[in-house]
């Protein structure tokens, strides 16, 4: 029997840092840390040095200087005398707009295509396969430019809508599809919360009055963005056209219908309250069903709880449709969805939708077939099985990759400059940088904005993810 004695105590030697596994990982980390720190400090000192050599300082003061340039699509009030900061904000809102629209449409497209690709119907599944493979495998920029080119080259110009034999508007003369974008009607209110302008009483020379307001009208219509809150100034003007055109013959003092952000906020609040009410009704029905086994009919009540308050509010505000009308060079009134927005929105949605379709398909396939069979054995129909059994479980697999698709879509929206969509990359990261020469500051701000936005999106989606993930008790 050999006794094993402890190895003799030896002092710490430097070579242990490399050859002893206990210390080696520590050594590697410290060295890597130092290298990264050196690289960073070199980059920073190099930048400072070069900025000095160029005689440039590092200053964000340019954000409060007047911008001097105009932006066509603006969700908040903006003119070229406002600051670069304001212009950046307009761009940020435009980015957010296309990101939200894009994420919504991409999700719908993706879920539909993903489910349909698993369909037993050969034609349907092949068609969606063509869609997915086609959009997924061609660069996004090409799709954006292609849709933009299709819109500008193949649609009629506003001038073609003149005369009898020209192009005509669709949907009861309310929607005009032109090569400058799509003009759709806008909802205006005669008792707006933002206050209504009153038409000039007793216009002495109707033609002259119409001409002057027409000027304001074209201003509004040509400068107004895609609906939503904050269209007040422009809409006031464009509504003035219609008001003046009609009011020139009528008695003076007529109220010009308009819309303000407050109106839309009120409508939104009513809608939210209505849907909460509908949800409460649904929960009550479920409670009764669980207690008695019979589910009371709630659908009409639920619909009423959303619609009735909405209609009441619309009537109280005196809502009416403001249809686009052919003005001097362009259509006046209504909402102008520019080609750039449409091309960017559709291309981003179709492209990202193809990826989401694959994620959805993967999520559904990840649910064991036994689940379907068990549901069928309980007597559930295929539709109910999909909605109540498969999709809720598939969501757990779908959501994490879906987050990164949303992030992709948002960041890809910076390709907007290709079609002249004035997003934050075009305003702050494009024109502002060019006019002020503040490349470093502008790019840092731009990077910071996308970083914050991405973190926000993934934060919100993570909250949703944890609400649908498997509850472990």
């Amino acid at each position: 029997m050999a006794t094993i004695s402890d190895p003799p105590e030896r002092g710490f030697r430097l070579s242990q840092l490399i050859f002893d596994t206990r210390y080696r990982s520590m050594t590697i980390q410290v060295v890597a840390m130092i290298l990264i720190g050196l690289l960073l400090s070199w980059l920073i000192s190099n930048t400072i040095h070069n900025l000095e050599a160029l005689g440039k300082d590092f200053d964000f003061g340019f954000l409060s200087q007047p911008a001097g340039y105009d932006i066509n699509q603006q969700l908040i009030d903006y003119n070229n005398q406002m600051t670069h900061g304001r212009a950046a904000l307009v761009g940020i809102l435009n980015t957010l707009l296309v990101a939200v629209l894009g994420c919504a449409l991409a999700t719908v497209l993706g879920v539909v295509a993903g489910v349909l690709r698993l369909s037993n119907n050969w034609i349907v599944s092949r068609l969606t396969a063509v869609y997915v493979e086609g959009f997924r495998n061609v660069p996004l920029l090409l799709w954006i430019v292609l849709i933009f080119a299709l819109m500008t080259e193949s649609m009629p110009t506003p001038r073609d809508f003149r005369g009898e034999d020209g192009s005509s508007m669709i949907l009861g003369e309310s929607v005009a599809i032109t090569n400058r974008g799509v003009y759709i009607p806008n909802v205006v209110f005669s008792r707006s919360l933002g206050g209504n302008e009153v038409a000039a009483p007793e216009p002495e020379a109707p033609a002259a009055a119409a001409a002057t307001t027409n000027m304001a009208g074209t201003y509004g219509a040509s400068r107004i963005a895609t609906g939503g809150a904050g269209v007040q100034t422009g809409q006031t003007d464009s509504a003035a056209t219609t008001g003046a055109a009609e009011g020139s013959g009528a008695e003076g003092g007529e109220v010009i219908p308009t819309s303000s952000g407050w109106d839309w906020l009120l409508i939104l609040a009513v809608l939210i309250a209505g849907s909460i009410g509908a949800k409460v009704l649904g929960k009550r029905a479920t409670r009764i069903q669980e207690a008695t086994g019979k589910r009371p009919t709630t659908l009409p009540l639920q619909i009423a709880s959303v619609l009735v308050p909405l209609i009441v509010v619309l009537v109280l505000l005196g809502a009416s449709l403001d249809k686009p009308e052919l003005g001097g060079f362009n259509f006046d009134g209504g909402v102008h969805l520019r080609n750039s927005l449409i091309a960017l929105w559709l291309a981003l949605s179709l492209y990202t939708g193809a990826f989401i379709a694959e994620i959805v398909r993967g999520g559904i396939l990840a649910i064991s077939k036994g689940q379907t069979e068990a549901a069928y054995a309980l007597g559930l129909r295929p539709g109910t099985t999909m909605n109540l059994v498969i999709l809720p479980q598939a969501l757990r697999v779908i959501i994490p990759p879906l987050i990164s698709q949303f992030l992709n879509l948002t960041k890809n929206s910076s390709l907007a400059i290709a079609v002249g969509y004035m997003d934050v990359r075009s305003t702050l990261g494009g024109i502002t940088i060019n006019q002020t020469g503040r490349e470093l500051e502008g790019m840092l701000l731009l990077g910071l904005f996308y970083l914050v936005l991405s973190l926000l999106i993934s934060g919100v989606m993570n909250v949703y993810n944890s609400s649908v993930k498997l509850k472990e008790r």
Partner: protein
Amino acid sequence: MKKTVTLGALTVAALAAGAAGAATLDDVKARGELKCGVSTGLAGFSAPDANNVWQGFDVAYCRALAAAVLGDPMKVAFTQTTGQTRFTALASGEIDVLARNTTWTFSRDVDLKFEFVGVNYYDGQGFIAPKSLGVASAKELDGATVCIQTGTTTELNLADFFRANNISYEPVPIETNAEAQQQYLAGACDVYTTDASGLAATRATFETPADHVILPEIISKEPLGPLVRHGDNEWGDIARWTLNALIAAEEYGVTSANIAELSSAPTNNPEINRLLGTEGELGAMLGLDAEWAKRAIMAGGNYGEIFEKNIGEATPIGLSRGLNAQWTEGGLLYSPPFR
């Protein structure tokens, strides 16, 4: 993705700027090539021809500069820049000189830290519209959709013009001249605005140029000229006096046809002698040899010859000299004396 690229580009730009250092002349000589920033293609000013050789009014200046510095007008590497990328390209040292119809303004000279070496074309911003639109004046453009190259002074002038006249417009921002042309021809905008020379050049490439009119209003002063980075005065002097040599050559009647004869022996005009290096030490003062200006002029002729060959009345672009005539003929071209 875009973000990373931009930040990466910034880093690269920062590194490149370190390398660019002060002595651009030494860098160019060591490289054996002049790096010149031009437009992405504007007929007559800078565009590659059928053999992929760059031709044009701005290109000719770069060739003259290369001839003066390196002795060979073909030793130029052209970098295409858009309205948005040009200043970054110059500031970062990616190019040695920018000759891209760039307007000399206070803020570009002072705040953006560039050195305009002179004016090679006196221009102004105008509008082009289809004849069928029936517009006779830019003041009738209330409510019109206007195509505009983004990141240029024209964008700011346009805003000022419409504000001053209290009329409205819808701007359609576009990256390059070619895209603007396509949008304009498709009718996506009612009018296109840029420098009047650019409009003439663009119109010349239309299928039916006669269907389009350039509106009479010139809404701004656009002195276009080459520019270099602030801080390297020696390089700035070379760029400035090469341009002046081309202008002075026309004034003194030095052409590519008679330059060999004039420079073979001192003439009885001392100004020509100093210009062509047969008298005085002007070349050495610039850090070049005595025949620098002779080579610059031989590269494409004097200013007048370059003008007539690329954008003059005999070309499809058909610009008249107008403001760009010599001061002796009622124009604004006026080279300081070679003395």
